[in-house]
């Protein structure tokens, strides 16, 4: 193939990928965009195979077929609830591929390659290996195989510094040696980077996971881009850099959604510690809000459930705020069912989605889409907030920090200044959470003690069903 023709095709493929991103702006065109990306990737593979065909075809071909078969099988088997873990796992697979390619490229000879290519190879090796181990840990946390809470070791930051600093002498060692010595140095670099990735990811957990998974998205792209420089493939470079920028945008959006800097989330690791509920918050013997409501004077209906149902029956406009608790309880189907029943009664029902609700960007939207909620009813925080004073009832399902008014009122808490869905401005609030403990941030939620709040504690799926029945009885 003529080099000029190859360049034209490469440019066309990159433009095709960029067009796919452009068309991803609306759910109506996004599916076509995904197909476009698939076509571009297939063309990229085809052009490489034509220009530089494998010397011996069976090994890459078998690997290609096996990877494709397993990838598709897994993709069709996972449920939407497992998406965050699955995406993290795939980031890891991409990381492995990047560091393996860099490894072989580096072990083949640094003499023939330019310094830029070699340095990029080392970068691809290190970032790929780190992305791999961090992603595996993140996947395990997201799949609830490992505890989601952050783990901190003594001198955690120092250990990370030492491990990162140790990469420099290992890199010089690999550069100046050859044969088995180089293999040893390269292997040591991979191990060092992998342990660094583990230490890096282990202290991020819970509600900070959206930042971690977006960051790994970016680092997987970066590893691919460096890999591209190392093997001198412009396509690989361009596509990797685009993914890196996409991951960076998402990381930025997640950080803004929590009003924290990236460094604060990833490095200083001062993600709030869960703290036991302070005893003085509710003096011993005084039951929580739900129980108070239950035994309240005769002016109020008997149970919180009845009060909540009455609120919903009387409401014209209802806003539902889902959080990670909904995903955990697998309650999205019941939530959607309740919303449909309310709509049948002629009410307007909208969903308010906080940017960092759930464990990955857009997590809630996918779950609700699966539950057949019309996506035009899913509203972003900035869109719903001005409407909330006109809303008769807000239904919170498994969310705490993202609706905690302490983020506005209180100074010096981990969530101070975090943008929230201002449900406290609505006329009434029904909280359908598992318990009345603080969310991940550990900050008490004053909403729970608000007289306009009804607490329906317990498993969200069960609560939704009871509420749907109760609200249906007019």
């Amino acid at each position, binding site marked *: 193939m003529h080099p000029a023709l190859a360049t034209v095709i490469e440019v066309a493929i990159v433009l095709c990928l960029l067009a796919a991103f452009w068309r991803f702006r609306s759910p109506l065109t996004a599916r076509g965009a995904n197909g476009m990306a698939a076509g571009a990737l297939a063309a990229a593979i085809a052009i490489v195979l034509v220009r530089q065909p494998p010397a*011996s075809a069976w090994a890459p071909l078998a690997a290609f077929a096996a990877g494709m078969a397993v990838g598709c099988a897994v993709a069709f088997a996972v449920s939407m609830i497992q998406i965050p873990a699955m995406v993290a796992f795939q980031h890891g697979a991409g990381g492995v591929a990047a560091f393996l390619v860099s490894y072989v490229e580096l072990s083949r000879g640094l003499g023939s390659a330019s310094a830029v290519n070699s340095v990029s190879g080392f970068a691809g090796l290190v970032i790929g290996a780190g992305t791999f181990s961090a992603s595996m840990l993140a996947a395990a946390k997201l799949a609830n195989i490992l505890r989601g809470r952050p783990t901190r070791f003594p001198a955690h930051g120092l250990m990370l510094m030492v491990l990162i600093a140790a990469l420099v002498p290992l890199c010089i060692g690999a550069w100046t040696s050859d044969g088995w010595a180089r293999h040893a140095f390269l292997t040591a670099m991979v191990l060092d980077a992998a342990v660094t990735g583990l230490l890096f990811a282990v202290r991020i957990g819970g509600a900070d996971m959206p930042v971690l998974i977006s960051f790994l998205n970016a680092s997987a792209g970066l*590893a*691919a881009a460096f890999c591209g420089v190392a093997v001198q493939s412009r396509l690989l470079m361009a596509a990797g850099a685009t993914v890196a920028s*996409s991951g960076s945008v998402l990381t930025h959006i997640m950080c803004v959604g929590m009003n924290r800097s990236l460094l604060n989330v990833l490095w200083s690791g001062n993600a709030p510690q869960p703290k036991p509920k302070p005893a003085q918050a509710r003096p011993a013997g005084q039951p929580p809000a739900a129980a108070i409501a239950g035994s309240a004077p005769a002016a109020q209906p008997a149970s919180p459930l009845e009060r909540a149902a009455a609120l919903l029956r009387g409401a014209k406009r209802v806003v539902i705020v889902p959080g990670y608790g909904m995903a955990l309880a697998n309650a999205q189907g019941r939530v959607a069912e309740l919303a449909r029943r309310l709509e049948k009664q002629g009410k307007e029902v909208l969903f308010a989605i906080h940017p960092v609700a759930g464990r990955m960007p857009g997590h809630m939207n996918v779950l609700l889409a699966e539950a057949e909620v019309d996506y035009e009813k899913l509203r972003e925080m900035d869109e719903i907030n001005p409407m909330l004073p006109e809303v008769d009832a807000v239904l919170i399902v498994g969310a705490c920090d993202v609706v905690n008014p302490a983020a506005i009122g209180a100074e010096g808490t981990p969530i101070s200044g975090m943008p929230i869905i201002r449900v406290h401005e609505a006329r009434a609030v029904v909280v359908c959470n598992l318990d009345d403990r603080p969310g991940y941030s550990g900050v008490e939620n004053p909403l729970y003690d608000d007289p306009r709040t009804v607490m329906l504690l317990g498993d969200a799926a069960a609560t939704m069903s009871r509420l749907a029945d109760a609200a249906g009885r007019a």
Partner: protein
Amino acid sequence: MADFLVMAGTLVFSFAVGYALIRRIPALLHTPLMSMTNAVSAITILGALLLFAEETGSLETALGAAAVALAMFNLAGGLAITDRMLRLFRKARKAGEARAESAGQGRAEVGG
């Protein structure tokens, strides 16, 4: 040096254009977006295939094959999952329309 400039230019250009495009994508589609970009990052498969352009030793064959398999797992799996997710969004719209029609209401009115 010219090579280096072309490479650096490619990296910076792609990053900048990607940034400009991704910023416009609504939060609604962030999960499928990440899933798709994840599949695109598996374009490292090109690098893995290029390794086989030369004769490979047994270690290189093993590592290269592993790279091809994992990259392809990431690529095919990522695109397939993205498609499954986006299909849900389409179905959601149709279901919503059907409900709105059966209730005799216009969409704009429901959307408020």
